[in-house]
């Protein structure tokens, strides 16, 4: 019996060895390939267009080099997961990829990103990039690992028709949270079948819940999420409870969408594609990129949106300085740490982000320009009537604390909002749950009561 077993084992071992010998050979020299991974969805094709153009340009200038485009179809969450899985192994890691600013730090920690300091110093156009935007590509060690592609801000987008019907004076500029509630109630009274004021909440909309919703509230109370001086996460703040209370008021008075709809991950598609164009929604907190959906060629093309829509900064809680709150994110391009052709990969990155391609992408996706030559271009400034308003918000904008704990903290915030809008917890209970969750995530000694 034992002998039989040992024979089986040795036979298996031989087979395993034989299989292991069949590793693929290296591709022929001189035939170089640059793999480029990025996100593409049916409503986001601007980046795909940019890379298609850059590929043509780059292959024409570099004979024998093939640029292999690998568009990944999926929402932000799924794209991030897929990219992180590809980056885990050098054999699947792309050479150049589209990287969310808030993942830069943790991906540098993981050793996925190539330090670009030396190469950027030799790139003449690097000076044209905005200094604040450059910060997004920096890691804890002070080195730059990613080049910004564009940034964004958040504001209140409102439908003028709905506001006029309710008798609200235009242009609308709320000065406090109370102003928002008063206006929303007025709209509700005037047109009961219209959703007066929507802010995302719950886990369904993911980062949208916090970026286009909760953080505008929280940072307007004077509280914060993270204390950069002590490097600790803030718990027990009044601002946190007040923000949850505001959401509760909005949802319990039916001033926002029904909670069941808020939890649908696709609710934003209805905001852009259905409710705003059909004047079924008064106002919503959304990104500066909103016009990219409505402009000609956008996924929810809406001729005349320029006249029907208006934009206003999100106010602070009681109108305190600086009077407005905004959040910024944005994406970058990065080079894989284990690329076999770092120079070629970096050169491709500079081609993709040259003035011509940057301008086309910035306009097509309604980004806020990060290159001074793009920002000064007339076609950028006249891309839509809202460019000036939303670019101005850069002065008051905030960035997420992009540590590797952030995704869990963000999920805890989303959970708190979900509990409040569904009525399963009061704002005080949900805030206490959040405090417990944060202490569990980062450890009690990394929290600070404010």
């Amino acid at each position, binding site marked *: 019996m034992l002998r*039989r077993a040992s*024979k*089986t084992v040795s*036979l*298996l071992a031989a*087979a395993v060895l034989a299989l292991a010998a069949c590793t693929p050979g290296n591709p022929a020299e001189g035939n170089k390939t640059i793999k480029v991974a990025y996100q593409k969805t049916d409503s986001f094709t601007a980046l795909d267009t940019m890379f298609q153009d850059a590929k043509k340009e780059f292959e024409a200038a570099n004979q024998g080099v093939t640029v292999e485009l690998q568009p990944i179809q999926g929402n932000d*969450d799924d794209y991030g*997961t897929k990219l*992180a*899985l590809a*980056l*885990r192994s050098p054999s699947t890691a792309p050479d150049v990829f589209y990287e969310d600013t808030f*993942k830069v730090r*943790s*991906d540098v*920690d*993981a*050793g*996925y990103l190539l330090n670009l300091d030396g190469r950027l110093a030799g790139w003449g156009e690097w000076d044209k990039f905005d200094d604040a935007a450059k910060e997004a590509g920096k890691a804890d060690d002070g080195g730059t690992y990613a080049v910004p592609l564009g940034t964004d801000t958040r504001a209140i987008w409102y439908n003028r028709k709905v506001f006029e019907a309710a008798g609200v004076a235009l242009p609308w500029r709320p000065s406090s949270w109370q102003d928002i509630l008063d206006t929303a109630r007025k709209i509700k009274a005037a047109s009961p079948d219209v959703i007066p004021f929507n802010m995302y909440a*719950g*886990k*369904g909309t993911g980062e949208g819940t916090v970026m286009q919703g909760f953080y505008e509230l929280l940072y307007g109370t004077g509280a914060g999420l993270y204390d950069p001086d002590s490097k600790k996460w803030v718990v027990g703040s009044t601002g946190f409870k007040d923000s949850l209370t505001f959401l509760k008021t909005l949802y319990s008075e039916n001033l926002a969408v*029904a*909670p*069941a*709809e808020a*939890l649908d*991950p696709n609710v934003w598609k209805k905001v852009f594609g259905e409710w705003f164009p059909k004047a079924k929604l008064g106002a919503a907190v959304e990104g500066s990129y909103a016009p990219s959906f409505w402009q000609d060629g956008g996924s929810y093309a809406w001729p005349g949106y320029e006249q029907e829509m208006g934009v206003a900064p999100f106010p602070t809680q009681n109108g305190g300085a600086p009077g407005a709150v905004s959040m910024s994110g944005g994406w970058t391009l990065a080079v894989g740490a284990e690329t076999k052709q770092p120079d070629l990969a970096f050169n491709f990155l500079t081609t993709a982000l040259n003035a011509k391609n940057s301008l086309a992408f910035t306009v097509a996706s309604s980004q806020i320009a990060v290159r001074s030559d793009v920002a000064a271009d007339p076609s950028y400034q006249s891309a839509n009537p809202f460019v000036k308003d939303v670019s101005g918000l850069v002065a008051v904008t905030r960035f997420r604390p992009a540590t*590797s704990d952030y*995704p*869990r903290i963000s*999920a805890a915030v989303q*959970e708190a909002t*979900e*509990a409040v809008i*569904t009525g*399963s917890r009061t704002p005080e209970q949900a805030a206490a749950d959040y405090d417990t969750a944060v202490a569990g995530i980062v450890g009690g000694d990394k929290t600070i009561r404010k």
Partner: protein
Amino acid sequence: MAANHRTRQLLRYLPVLPAVLLLLVFLAGPVLWAFHSSLTNAGLTGRYARNPEWVGLQNYQRLLQDPVFPLSLALTVLFVAGSAIVGQNVLGLALAVLMRRARPVVSATVGTAVVAAWVLPEIVAAFAAYAFFSRDGTLNQLLGQFGAAETDWLYTVPMAAVILANIWRGTAFSMLVYRAALDGVPAELTEAAHMDGAGPWQRLAFITLPVIRGSIATNLMLVTLQTLAVFTLIWVMTAGGPANGSTTLPVLAYQEAFKFGDIGYGTAVASVLILIGAVFGAAYLRLLRERKP
């Protein structure tokens, strides 16, 4: 001569070699990898992505303190019991028994309708179920004909919705197994019982069921293990929500490993799931073995 004998002995294993290799590579490999990862702090990104540290049973300790875990465990049991053990299994048996008595036309029509749900790829079936239960879905439209108010089924009763969807999708398998099993019940036995005055219920309980006991155990084992692993259906329909109201263990493992990038913790959840599957499997195997006293 001895060498020849040896060679022949070795050759006897040759036909099973591919199967053993495939099982090792695609079954034992991932299971061992998952268990190993669950003892580390491996992440999707961050410092420990490529160089995970050994943390022992820390992930399992965290699991025991996680308030979502008991909920998720209970939901998994409810999902398996409701949709597999009771739903698919009993409905499949009932259909198989009734189809033997029905007219051929009725039997063929019912059979086709039931099997149709089963041949759909899981993602298609999941979208069909989502379209049925969602707010502007078929169910609400049908009920609307009778003047019923719109209900958000996926929001108010998420577990009932996914359980019904899984019953719809999976009953065909049990039905086919039981149809084959019922064909194997000797007609003399049933007839004899009939002569002795046993009614239809008594014949089912005392003749048919004991004879097909082996098939019942096999079917229960297969549908239980299949249902334990259901992910796509739930993910598409509710994504585990609302407020974790339909987060079964596979959904929890996915969320932890990929949404929060905590591979170590996610694989710990997966390991628990494997363990539950193994316990179920062992219980059913025992049932099978006890068949012949």
